[in-house]
């Protein structure tokens, strides 16, 4: 027993040393594992040949409360890289991505991104879904002059952190506006209740805009109730909502909760349509919600009905790689973000921060699976949103709403 403590001390010293060592990533491609000779492990790992790979960094929530979203994003990015490498890589170099888990915590995201920048020397950073974590990363990336593309952080402040921070999705205010407009003009609703996720900045952001816009358009918000991500019982909120007799309920949360909310709403006899945002987009929604979610609407980046070959191929490839799972919006956005990054790597004269930054900023009408991407001067994607209706275990296109 006494031996343990000194051993721990020794292990600690080794670990500290390993952390300090300026390692090159030990290279792992999204696909083409055979092409990538695994490097022998020595301490923190020896650098690979070095010149024949370009290293990208990714931070995501692979564990913790938001793991669902982080894992989808990781899969999307991995798919994009695999395709790029199969097509010969960029400028004759293979692309590899280093993925770090932030346990759904912003301080871990900051730590991971710092490690990516200083230890792994990545040229570009992809991630996060949660805006809090993206903000933490943005601060570090901006300071280090490494470009960062967030696939799905919709909080407006993220890209305000600096000129190195980009995003390939629209922002909260737009999405809130889309659904308010749709509810008021297409569905002709007068009274709507809101059920928001109080633990998610995304949900709070959408709620704020929706309430404001919906009221401006002459509608009435009957009540705003809250739940916390991870809850599974929403009956109390729904009972309170039912009392106000709304004609619709806006639930700008994530599918992991929305499906269950729909079931419980129906159980309590609330038959009005639910409405939501891109957080709904996942095939899991249909599994969790069952028939209860039918007749609900949500705004999204793209429609899976899209006859576009590109989208079909993406869905097929994704299914092939991930046990038949249908990609959700987060996977699609992550895939797009990675492809924007790859495109920029191709176009940029070199992989230095400023060159990449300039190349990304020039992205215009890039054909993403989640809509065409044009980055504005605020480095946000200018996209139109589609509204989808859920029925019979799938979502169908209803209308497109432009900014």
């Amino acid at each position, binding site marked *: 027993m006494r031996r343990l403590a000194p051993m721990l001390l020794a292990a600690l010293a080794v670990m500290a040393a390993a952390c300090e060592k300026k390692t090159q990533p030990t290279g792992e491609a999204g696909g083409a594992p055979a092409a990538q000779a695994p490097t022998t492990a020595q301490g923190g790992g020896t650098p690979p040949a070095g010149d024949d790979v370009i290293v990208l960094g990714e931070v995501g929530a*692979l*564990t*913790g*409360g938001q*793991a*669902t979203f*982080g*894992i989808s994003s990781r899969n999307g990015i991995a798919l994009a890289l695999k395709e790029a490498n199969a097509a010969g890589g960029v400028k004759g170099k293979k692309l590899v991505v280093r993925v770090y888990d932030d346990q759904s915590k912003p301080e871990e995201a900051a730590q991971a991104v710092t490690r990516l920048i200083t230890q792994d020397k990545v040229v570009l950073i992809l991630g996060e879904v949660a805006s809090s974590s993206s903000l933490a990363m943005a601060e570090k990336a901006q300071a280090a002059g490494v470009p960062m593309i967030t696939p799905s952080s919709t909080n407006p402040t993220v890209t305000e952190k600096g000129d190195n921070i980009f995003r390939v999705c629209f922002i909260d205010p737009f999405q809130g506006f889309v659904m308010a407009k749709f509810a008021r003009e297409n569905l002709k609703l007068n009274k709507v209740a809101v059920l928001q996720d*109080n633990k998610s900045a995304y949900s709070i952001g959408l709620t704020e805009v929706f309430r404001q816009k919906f009221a401006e358009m002459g509608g009435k918000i009957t009540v705003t*109730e*809250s*739940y*916390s991500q*991870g*809850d*599974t*019982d929403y*009956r*109390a*909120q729904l*009972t*309170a909502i*039912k*009392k106000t007799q709304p004609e619709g309920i806006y639930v700008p949360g994530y599918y*992991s909760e929305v*499906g*269950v909310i729909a*079931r*419980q709403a129906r*159980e*309590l*006899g609330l038959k009005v349509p639910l409405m939501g945002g891109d957080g709904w987009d*996942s095939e*899991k929604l249909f*599994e*969790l*919600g*069952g028939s209860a979610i039918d007749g609900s609407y949500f705004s999204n980046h793209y429609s899976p009905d899209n006859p576009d070959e590109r989208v079909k191929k993406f869905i097929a490839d994704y299914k092939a790689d991930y046990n038949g799972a249908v990609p959700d919006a987060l996977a699609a956005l992550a895939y797009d973000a990675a492809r924007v990054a790859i495109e920029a790597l191709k176009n940029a004269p070199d992989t230095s921060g400023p060159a990449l930054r300039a190349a990304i900023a020039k992205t215009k009408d890039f054909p993403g699976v989640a809509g065409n991407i044009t980055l504005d001067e605020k480095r946000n994607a200018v996209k139109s949103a589609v509204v989808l209706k859920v029925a019979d275990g799938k979502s169908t296109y209803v209308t497109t709403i432009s900014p």
Partner: protein
Amino acid sequence: MSQLLQHLINGLASGTIYALVALGYTMVYGVLKLINFAHGDVMMVGVYMGYATAFALGRQAQRSMWGVVVIFAVAMVGCALLGFLIERFAYRPLREKPRLTALITAIGISFALSYGFQLDIGFLPGASPRAFPEVIVPSEWFIIGDRDVVVWNWQVISFLIAVGLMAALQFLVYRTRFGKAMRAVSYDHRTAALMGIPTDRIIALTFMLSSALAAGAGLLYAIKDTSVSPLMGLYVGLKAFVAAVIGGIGNVPGAVVGALLLGLVEEFVVGYAASTWRDAVAFAFLILVLLVKPGGLFGRVAAEKV
């Protein structure tokens, strides 16, 4: 009025589930004075076992009477086994050590289970929640007004199962030899051992019992809220633990009353006050109860013999 009734039904429904989980905390605390932080996660594992069984049975079988019985049996037996292993390898070696030590291993197990089940490697389910199959085909049993208040068959069935489990437990603890031994161990496990009570076996059995109960509770919970996720144990576990303390941890009826109270308090805070403050009110309620009755509602603070 109908709204009040609906809130009452909701509150009681979540309260009964808290109660079943809280009983597990209370029993283990009773015999070992250990806050078993892994309890909620054991529950989660039980739900996944039930989930896997339901799938193995197929859609038709899982909805039959015996299908439900099989699902519950597999989950409860599986969890009892898990509880046994945890007790045997993570707690028993530390029984004569400072109490905090076992608490840390409990936390370790909790981390390993809840994070482990988030992995999408091998048989592990991955982080996203999954829909729990409707093993009891929903039908409306009782309707007031124009569907103002609806009571579903599964709500009644769950309630009955929960009450049945609690009654069985009460019987077991207060009317059987095993229960007597358990209470003796709870009172003083060293003396109990001297009196010829097989302490190790009693403690192991208590663990298995509480884990089986957790699995049952978890399944009812999953049926009620129709989903299962790796983090469910953390959330439900914490609340159930609070419920056990409100009732007086170590006290069986106390856990039930505490859980029902907590369920109702949460429900009414959301229903009639601000839903954002639900968790804060739940904990404030806990602190209030403890300040008025330092040993919980039914617990007694053991007056220290001087």
